[in-house]
């Protein structure tokens, strides 16, 4: 009999955890990882020195800063740097859109298989974990004994986009998509999303499915 001892089991879990952590990059500020960043020294004395109380030199210093920004930005406006429209970071929203990070949590959607049925098995975990109580499910059973939700409603007026439903789902059936537009409505009745409105095909969500597998599967199970 070759059973693993408790210690060996622990080391295995640790190894798994380490491998999962190595996938996650440490948070970087510029090119420095956050744990190696040292705080700047703050000048504590708030009394003005004589040089500062003269006002004029300090005013000139401030004006030099703003004028430098003004001149560089004006040059950026008139002669935009290679291919860009300008050197300013502002995004002209409706025309241009931000590239969203992988972890972005937009509106929750149900994953639809290629044959048009949903992955969801109506286990009710998402309904249970939802802190805003916005999900309500009624389970049913097909002829081949497969469970499916006959009724799956998500109230978008209550949803807080926490992503717990996605985290808890054992079947990767509910995901946070990257959609953030068109969620506002004039009527609250329209914000009660039925199953048909929530279903999105697998292919469109492939990127998110991969991300969810990378993030949750190893750490939690």
């Amino acid at each position, binding site marked *: 009999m070759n059973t693993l001892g408790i210690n060996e089991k622990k080391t295995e879990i640790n190894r798994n955890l380490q491998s999962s952590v190595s996938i996650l990059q440490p948070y970087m500020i510029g090119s420095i990882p956050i744990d190696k960043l040292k705080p700047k020294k703050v000048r504590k004395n708030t009394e003005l020195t004589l040089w500062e109380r003269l006002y*004029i030199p300090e005013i000139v210093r401030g004006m030099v*800063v*703003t004028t430098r920004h003004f001149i560089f*930005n004006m040059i950026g406006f008139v002669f935009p740097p290679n291919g860009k429209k300008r050197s*300013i*970071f*502002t995004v002209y929203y409706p025309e241009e859109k931000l590239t969203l990070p992988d972890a972005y949590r937009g509106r929750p959607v149900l994953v639809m298989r290629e044959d048009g049925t949903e992955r969801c098995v109506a286990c009710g975990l998402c309904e249970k974990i939802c802190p805003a109580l916005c999900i309500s499910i009624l389970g049913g059973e097909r002829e081949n004994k497969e469970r499916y939700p006959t009724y799956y409603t998500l109230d978008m007026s209550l949803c807080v986009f926490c992503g717990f439903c996605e985290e808890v789902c054992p079947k990767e059936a509910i995901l946070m998509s990257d959609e953030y537009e068109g969620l506002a409505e004039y009527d609250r009745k329209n914000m009660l999303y039925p199953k048909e409105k929530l279903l999105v095909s697998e292919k469109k969500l492939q990127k998110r499915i991969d991300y969810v597998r990378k993030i949750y599967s190893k750490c939690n199970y």
Partner: protein
Amino acid sequence: MIADLIEAVAKILFIFGVNMGFFAPVLGWVERKQSAVMQDRVGANRADIFGFTLIGLLHPVADTIKLLTKEDFIPAGANKLFHTLAPFITLTPALIAFSVIPFGGQYEIYGHTINLVIADLDVGILFIFAFASLSIYGVVLGGWSSNNNWSFLGAMRASAQMLSYEVAMGLAIIGVIMVYGSLRLTDIGAMQENFFKWGIFLQPIGFILFIACATAENKRIPFDIPEAETEIVAGYFTEYSSMKFIMFWMAEFLEMITIAGIITTLFLGAWHIPFISSKMLLSLFSFAGANGATILVMLTNIATFFTKIIFMIWFQMTIRWTLPRFRYDQMMKLGWKILLPLSLINIFITGLVLLL
């Protein structure tokens, strides 16, 4: 006689057109756009006609139409007469004060002498100060008649501030008057043909004092406590809407132009280009004949003057978007304890240097 009349009307129309037709509306756009560029933003660029946005230049038009079609609201309990009168009293002096500022020298074209100033008064600077102090009445009346605590506080602050800074401003200018020996602005302008005789080199302290006091007179940041948004909503014009609101804003912009004009005339060599005298300009334009050369010199001088004005407006805007607001007591302290003694010392030193 008729030529004089035509000349006067042409000058008035020119200055009125440039100030009210060009500067007053465009400065609103400049204020927004320049602050945006200084703060790494994009600024107003959405208003368009058939898809042409003209880098946001249509925003002043849109704003004006919006404000004109708004309800002209007079609050309950307000003094209707004074409430209506106040913006006029503020706007008119701001508009008039520019009339004594020369935007060019004297030129003789086809035997007719043209003096490029609307009213060549021999007490030019005093005239400007008189009208600058008249605009306080508009502010105080507007604040008092609105029947609003914020407006009243703003008016009180404005009166205190403008009274205390008027003194330092008048004294700051006296040094310049002593150096050039004239109150007539055309004379002062004509005397600055030599680059090293510009007021900014002869009176550097006076220049700084005057800019500080003029900013305070115009109630702009860092001296904008009468209309401090974070403290008293909008100060004395909290209760104004529609066209009257525009008039207060226009008055502020016109005062900015007037201040730029005074600084240009007194300190920055008026209509002269540095290192180029009008004789050199005349010989440069000699290909156009005697009269043509004079006209070209005149146009060059006007262009130079307005270039300097635009630079000074840019400078004031930069100050406005760089510095934070003074506290009320700090501002009073600055006015009475620093600027006033400094201007007196400046007069003293100037007199000493002139005597020796």
